[in-house]
């Protein structure tokens, strides 16, 4: 019984996905005159996006609430938790991530419920896929063993490949999906190869066992060879670096983000990235948390720091050169991965604070980026989608509320107080200073200056420019679901910015007492 309670968030999302799949398969297509086929393929449940989206978001919010419930009960007090260890670790660390992932998934479902009917790609497999993918993401965040890690990773990724290619008629979407699929499989294979090497070298698949075996390297009676372990570390970092979209493993990001339907883009930016960071932290701190491997001279910190600097700099500089807002947000997500990696690098000295700062940053980033994509969705409608900067010109006059919401999320992404983004960034940089990584902080701050330029550029177009006469402009859509997602995200952005106390304490607790 304990186990069921402890696993309730995961089970809720999984069963919810199955139910939604049944509902979609046996549900009647909507009567209204929309196409119920794509080519020769019959779309079951076509035109039911709004209903299914609502269902999916309710399931995911229930998952988030259950995660909070288990948190309040306390995973330490549930005896049954040990039965699934080490394959699924249910501790405060994974509960925090479960909450964030469910939140991100719920935003996606709400946005999808508005976006898909509006753009006539109302094919309802979207929602079960979101649920299964979130299920995989939660399993990934919970996993403490290389086997469950790989299963979770693939469950999450397979769903996302399909989500990207949802617009079957569009060559761009197909290209994006194929690109992501090929490179993603390659990255997964790298991770798997790393796992195999680790098993070969240490004889363990669970991370704690690996950590203990790695710690014996160099001792006289040790049977563990250093070389395969280091190779495995490099391969694992490469595989996970692909999922978090860190430079130089980022090449797929802009195309995949741009080709995917916008809710799917939000899902990739928020959920996939967060889950990958969860497992990255766990692998590095538990599997490779040995003192020598965590030192600046002989371990992974310089690699992570290099990835962080590259991701921030390349992400920001290239984002500043984009003409499409969606592509800009894709590059900005790369830059944000870089900031979170600064926090990961900072774990070398102030481990708890730095881990907590990464957790809080991911929560903030999920909310802000889901909000930003939501606002982008709200600003466009069928045939008048908001894609480039010019599409948004003067939208503050035509739809002030949408422009205001978009500005709020952009300011949060740029890290202006009093929004959540500011506090997240501050915390990450503070823990980096605690670890005396001054150079990383300076580079990060200079990058936030570049970031301010292109985030404000969107606001400049919305507020200060007029559309060129005759040019296509975005017409805002009206959808209760998108609006409610944005209102929820906006409240969270302001709430986490002005009163971050409770969520911060939770992040600190999640980082400190993992067990």
């Amino acid at each position, binding site marked *: 019984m304990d186990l069921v309670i402890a696993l309730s968030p995961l089970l809720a999302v999984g069963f919810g996905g199955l139910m939604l799949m049944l509902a979609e398969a046996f549900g009647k297509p909507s009567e209204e005159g929309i196409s119920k086929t794509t080519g020769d393929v019959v779309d079951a449940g076509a035109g039911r996006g709004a209903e299914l989206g609502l269902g999916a978001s309710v399931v995911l919010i229930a998952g988030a609430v259950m995660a909070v419930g288990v948190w309040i009960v306390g*995973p330490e007090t549930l005896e049954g*938790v*040990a*039965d*699934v*260890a*080490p394959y699924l*670790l249910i*501790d405060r*660390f994974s509960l925090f991530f479960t909450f964030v992932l469910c939140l991100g998934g719920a935003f996606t479902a709400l946005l999808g419920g508005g976006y898909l009917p509006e753009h006539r790609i109302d094919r309802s497999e979207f929602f079960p896929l979101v649920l299964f993918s979130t299920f995989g993401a939660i399993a990934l965040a919970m996993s*403490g063993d290389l086997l469950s890690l790989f299963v979770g990773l693939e469950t999450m990724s397979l769903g996302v490949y399909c989500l990207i290619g949802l617009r079957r008629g569009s060559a761009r979407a197909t290209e994006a999906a194929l690109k992501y699929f090929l490179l993603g499989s390659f990255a997964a294979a790298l991770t798997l190869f790393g796992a195999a090497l680790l098993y070969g070298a240490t004889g363990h698949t*669970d*991370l*704690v*066992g690996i*950590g203990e075996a790695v710690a014996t390297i160099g001792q006289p009676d040790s049977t563990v060879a250093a070389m395969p372990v280091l190779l495995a570390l490099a391969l694992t970092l490469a595989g996970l670096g692909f999922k978090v979209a860190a430079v130089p493993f980022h090449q797929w990001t802009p195309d995949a983000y741009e080709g995917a339907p916008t809710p799917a883009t939000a899902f990739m930016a928020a959920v996939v990235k967060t889950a990958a960071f969860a497992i990255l932290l*766990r692998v590095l*701190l*538990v599997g490779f*948390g040995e003192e020598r491997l*965590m030192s600046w001279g002989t371990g992974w910190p310089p690699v992570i720091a290099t990835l962080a600097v590259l991701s921030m700099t390349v992400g920001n500089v290239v984002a500043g050169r984009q003409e499409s807002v969606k592509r800009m947000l894709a590059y900005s997500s790369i830059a944000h991965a870089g900031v979170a990696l600064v926090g990961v690098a900072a774990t070398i*000295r*102030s*481990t*708890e604070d730095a*881990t907590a700062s990464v957790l809080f940053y991911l929560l903030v980033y999920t909310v802000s980026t889901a909000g930003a994509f939501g606002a982008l969705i709200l600003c466009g409608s069928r045939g008048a989608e908001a894609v480039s900067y010019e599409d948004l010109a003067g939208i*503050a*006059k035509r739809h*002030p509320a949408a422009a205001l919401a978009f500005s709020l999320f952009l*300011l949060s992404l740029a890290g*202006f*107080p*009093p929004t959540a983004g500011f506090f997240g960034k501050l915390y990450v*940089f*503070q823990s980096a*200073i*605690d670890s005396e990584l001054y150079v990383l*902080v*300076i580079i990060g*701050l200079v990058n*936030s*200056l570049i970031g*301010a*330029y292109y985030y*404000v550029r969107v606001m*400049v177009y919305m*507020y*200060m*420019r007029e559309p060129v006469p005759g040019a296509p402009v975005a017409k805002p859509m009206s959808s209760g679901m998108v609006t409610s997602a944005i209102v929820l995200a906006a409240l969270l952005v302001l709430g986490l910015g002005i*009163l*971050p*106390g*409770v969520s*911060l304490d939770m992040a*600190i607790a999640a*980082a*400190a*007492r*993992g*067990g």
Partner: protein
Amino acid sequence: MTGFSGGIIEALPYLFAFFVGAMIPRRQGWAERVGIGVVGVLAVAFVMGLWPEAADAEATQAVTRADEWPQLLNVIVFLPIVGAVAILFAPRQNPKLLRAMTMGILAADFLISLGLLRANMTTGWHFQYVTEWLPTFGIRYHVAIDGISLWMVLLSTVTTPIAALVSFGSIKKRTKDLCFAMLLLHGGMLGAFVSLDLFLFYVFWELMLIPMVILIGVWGGVEKIKAAYKFLLFTMAGSVLMLAAILYMVWAHRQAAGFVTFDYLAMSNLVLPRTAATLCFIAFAFAFVVKVPMWPLHTWLPDAHVQAPTGGSIILAAVLLKLGTYGYVRFCMGMLGGPAYDRAATLAGVAVGGGILYGALCAWKQTDVKRLVAYSSVAHMGFVMLGLFAATTSGIKGALLTMINHGIATGALFLLVGVIYDRRHTRLVSEFGGLAKVMPVYAAVFVIVTMASIGVPGTNGFVGEFMVIVGTFVSSALGRHGSIQAVLATFGVILAAVYMLSVVQKMFFGPITNKRNENLPDMNVRETLAVAPLVALIFVLGLFPSLVLDTMDSSVAHVIDKYNSGRDSHRGNTIDELRLLNPSPKGDDPTSYDHNYPVPPKSDDDESANAASRPLSTAVALGQGVSRGVAR
């Protein structure tokens, strides 16, 4: 009074939330409105419940003087911010209502701020309010004023309503955005002047940025977007450096004292290693100097001024630039006196050469009146910075007085330039001539304000610049360069007369050279009403400067004390020593300046001691569940 009005204040957020909630539905009946209003009240109750409680009431009680109402500063700062949020829910189609709301809020804010004058500013901090904000991080909400920030607050509450009044005359489009930006900007500026917690200060400092960018970028001239970007990027560059310095100082304080805090007083007792202190000083000074602005970082200012609408220019010149100088007094001199002393002579040279002289020469060559006034700002702010670098009593007092004077006189000048721009849509000097014949009132006011700007005795400009020059002469921080710099600064006064008087002569006297100027109407009621208080203040402060100077006596002495002790400890410090000045600043002595300053709580005493020695702790914790599982 406290009980009753305190009760009202406590109920205000709920009432406000109810009102806002009830206003949201567009065409619904009263039932929906009440329902959503109740939801708003619940939301506020939720936030109130989440607020970290740490015996706020007693904490505030202990630091407040008996005759001062502790909520006063909160009301002054948050009235405009709450008003800005309320404006969002007001109907866009009714600009009259929006203007009335904004003017009402700004006027009320001004009247309430007059209550600050009731305090007897002999010593210490006044109207303090302190409460825990993020206890885990040592961040507090701590506001207070002393003899320095009092005048900055009053300067903002006087000039912003004037700027709003002027803007409403000339800007007719997108009134709602204008009202929102004005109110938010006002709240941000006031907040920055009164915060004594570095985090809080930074939040307000950044809060001002976006409204100002919007003011310039939406209602500006032809090149408005470029000017807005320039303003944004210059200011942002300064503030990210400041953020880095703040984070470093917080960390250093934790190393030295063992607990995290962002508190101003705690930071000013910190003695950093020499190099680090210098770097922190450079970061802070960069942020402030960009805002002032000082040569060679001044290039955003002429663009911003020329492109900004009149109201924006008035706020920018009168208050926003003062944040730079205020920040320098409060934070650079108060916290980092050592490196400030080391660099004073060099920086004073820059202030004289790049600010006073170069600014004046640039102003002389301008053909656009507004650009001329903008460059004259660079010159005047050069005087202010010179007085601060000199760091003598008369230098600092003169600088503070010049800040106020510059706010009044330059604000008035921008207002007057706006008057003629609204009539002719040009600001080129060559377009005008002989205006005194068609617009006698306007010409008279312009000449008076010009006199104040030049610093003719009897107007306010004279006293401040005179004190700055005297202070520079005797300054020990400037060493033997002080006298040379004082002499050169005096040339700046002459140059001011040259460029201002020549433009007055060209614009107002002689024959009417341009036919289109023949039928220009004189100043209307709105414009006269807006400029009248500024003209009155020019004479009041010119004839009775001691009104202002006396109240800042003890605060200036306190700043100099901090500056000197910072200098001495910095000198005695080695290259890598980190320590605290007088480790137990116990505030029992009622004669000491900081005796009622609430000492920050020691949040996590022993954490720094063992933080370094446990790099593996999280790793172990993360794996605990696993090992337990395996053990079973």
